[in-house]
């Protein structure tokens, strides 16, 4: 078990290194000068000196310097925002994105799983039909539409929640719910399908035949099996919710990492591009690893299968 986890972690590090190399190459070959700002031009001597200070004139040196720093979580200075280091910028924004993403996934699981179970149990009922319709909406509506709708409803019309921002509990519900909707829809579908599978299983029939209450059979026996696909989805989904909240962050003015991910690319802010990409990649890798571990703990069958 431990050996398997270590092997997976080793692959994770290798993946991260690959991501670094690819991103670095792209950052170097992309056209445009990161020091060009506004309409005016700097004296070429100063541009050369700045390039020397940031080791931009020596790509190899920059490659190793940055890597050395990144290992210590020091992502160097921001080229665009001279008063800040990339570590400061990421350090302020990352907790926001992580908190928002985790909240969204928790909401998605806590609401999505029971709905999925119920619609499987009451298969082909009006409830099942309505759920399927909602799921379709949840998957196909982009978050900037649902977000704006919630904003207009709860913040402008009813005025019970703030317009946007970050700083108090009342700022949490709208962005978290908006971000959770597509994940929730997917979890409902996933739960429903695997629940239908499980309910047809022999162990369910046996349990019912032994006289166990139907309620217990569904929620304890069947769900234990049916939850496994959901569990393996949660890992990548959590990583995706933390890293892919750019649109939601923009709609609700949440100061997360997504904006820096996009802006740094537009600004050619090399240090920040590399920093955000590495952090995002690390989150994805860690969450996938976590799910693998939890999966093994939750499903005895997988213990004998190589990871």
């Amino acid at each position, binding site marked *: 078990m431990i050996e398997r986890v270590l092997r997976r972690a080793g692959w994770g590090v290798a993946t991260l290194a690959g991501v670094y190399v690819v991103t670095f190459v792209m950052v170097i070959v992309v056209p445009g000068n990161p020091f*060009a700002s506004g309409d005016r031009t700097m004296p070429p*001597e100063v541009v050369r*000196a700045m390039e020397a200070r940031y080791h931009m004139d020596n790509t190899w040196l920059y490659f190793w310097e940055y890597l050395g720093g990144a290992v210590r979580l020091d992502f160097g200075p921001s080229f665009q925002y001279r008063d800040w280091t990339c570590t400061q910028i990421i350090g302020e924004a990352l907790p926001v994105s992580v908190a928002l993403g985790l909240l969204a996934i*928790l909401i998605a699981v806590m609401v999505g799983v029971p709905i999925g179970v119920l619609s499987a149990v009451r298969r082909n009922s009006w409830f099942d039909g309505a759920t399927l319709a909602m799921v379709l909406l949840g998957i196909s509506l982009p978050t900037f539409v649902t977000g704006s709708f919630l904003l207009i409803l709860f913040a402008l019309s009813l005025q019970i929640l703030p317009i946007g921002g970050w700083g108090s509990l009342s700022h949490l519900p709208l962005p978290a719910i908006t971000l959770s909707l597509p994940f929730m829809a997917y979890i409902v579908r996933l739960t429903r399908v695997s629940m239908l599978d499980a309910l047809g299983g022999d162990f369910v029939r046996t349990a019912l035949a032994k006289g166990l209450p139907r309620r217990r059979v569904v929620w304890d026996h069947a769900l234990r099996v049916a939850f496994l696909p959901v569990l393996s989805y949660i890992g990548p989904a959590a990583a995706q919710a933390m890293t892919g909240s750019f649109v939601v962050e923009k709609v609700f003015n949440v*100061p997360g990492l997504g*904006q820096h991910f996009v802006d740094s690319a537009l600004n050619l802010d090399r240090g920040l591009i590399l920093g955000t990409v590495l952090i995002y990649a690390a989150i994805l890798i860690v969450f996938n690893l976590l799910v693998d571990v939890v999966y093994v703990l939750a499903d005895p069958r997988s213990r004998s299968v190589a990871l």
Partner: protein
Amino acid sequence: MAAKLYATCTALLLLILAMLGFGGGGGFGAGRNRADFAYVNQSGINTLDPAAMTWMQDFRVALNIWEGLTQYDPKVGEAVPAAATMPEASSDGLVYTFTIREDARWSNGDPVLAGDFVRGWRRAIEPGTAGDYAFLLTEHIEGASAYFEWRLSAVEAELADHAQAMDARFAKVGIRAVDDRRLELRLTAPCSYLADLLALPVFLPIHESIERLRVSCSDADRSGKIMLTEQGLVAYDPQWTKPDYREKGYQGLVTNGAYRIEDWQFKRRLRMVVNPYHRDVGRIECDTVDMVVYRNLNAAIMAYEAGDLDFLPDTAVSYTHELVRLGRVGERTDFVNPPVFGTYYYIFNCSAATYNDRVNPFTDARVRKAFALAIDRKLLVEQVLGRGDPPTHCLIPKGSIPGYTSPEGLNYAPDEARRLLADAGYPGGVGLPVIDLLYNTGFDHGKVCDVLGNMWARELGVVVSLRGKEVKTFAEDRKNGNFMIARAGWYGDYADPTTFLDVFAGDSGNNGGGYTSDAYDALLGRARVTADVRARFRILAEAEAMLVREDLPLIPLHQYTQLLAISPRVRGIVANDRLRFSFSQVHRPSASKDSQ
């Protein structure tokens, strides 16, 4: 199973909330109290270093937390004395001695000294700390240019001599603290707009505590004298602009304006509080001012409507024209749309003989003129943009500089345009290559390009290909002359025609089209040595006429406007063409803290 799942989820939920509550979530829990005055900023502060700043939103904060010798007063519409009394010039108009006000104070209580200005201005012309506005000093202050050039050579060459000779060399620059309170300024030429110039951030003083954060190479630490980095730059720890930075005995940013920074969260919020030592502190009504970052202006407008924000200094959204209309018909008097000190125009590539292996037709002034004459600005501004931007045929916004009258430019005259094009050897557009039109994507730039392309196709029979690029690559392409016609625009910095006309000088780094004219440069040179303001303005008007009537390196299209939203709850924010706003002038008639 279900119960276990819920227990786990709830535990995780509580854990997240607890983490947020105890400050783990990047400033969560802070900033719940609303400032007395809150305004929005879309993109965050780029830098608060006055020597390096270029962006209007950075200027806005800097000019409220620092105070120069003069300061632009939106109510008066011009620069007024601030940290110093207005000096008399010497008879030749070259030497000024400013006296710093006795009650000028830094936010830590220290008196503002003449040396603080010298420090600030010296940083502004040091390679390493110098920014885009360094040219204002090198152009106007005696010896500054020579010093800057000499220092640039340090960046490339031997450093040891440099470090030793720096102070001696700087002594030749026309900035000198005569004593603690008197500051002497020697100019390269008489300057009628000096007061206006000195109100810019690049002329702000810097508190001496910054010297603690000077970055030097290892040699420096041993000798204690050399102050250069390995690259010959003078550099400071960039964290010096932070209010809470405490390294090497640094006590955080000290400023001398009406406000100081209390808290700065990156791209989130910047809080200013009144500087208790400022002489006007008794008259200032808004003790706290928040600059809140909203990347999405739609959300900002909603927050403004809900009363969370008092002022939107920039309201460029897709429905701006509709907001402008509401303001104009009097339905929403809080939306005002003043014309500002800037012009939107297109430039021609005047220098490259060939472009993409074809002859570049725009080296011929007749072709440029023909393209300019084929533009119907009224249609563009009214039917396409609809924001009320005044159409213009000249470079300098009309009436923006007291005493200066711009010449008449070229009006829409398609027949004349076709005749000129035929004269140049392209009758009916025959023989012209496909015209490459470069613009940066975003805002209405693409729309304008579309319309211009259509006008040229219709009136002149040319084929236009549009090339939209993201702003950084656009800037690179334009700088390298990789275009035939490109979008451009310029905002003036000070109340003198040269703030616009210098762009087209042969030696200007901002002259993207590569336009060179000895006659034009000669006019600018003559104006430089003419002390009489009216005679000087006549010469400059002649130069502008050359640009917009004869040589046409550019096609002026319209003057910029900027839609402001000023909440009726506050008074004292005065719309002005420089877009400078003094928060110390804001007052709130209803002192109640709104709906919060």
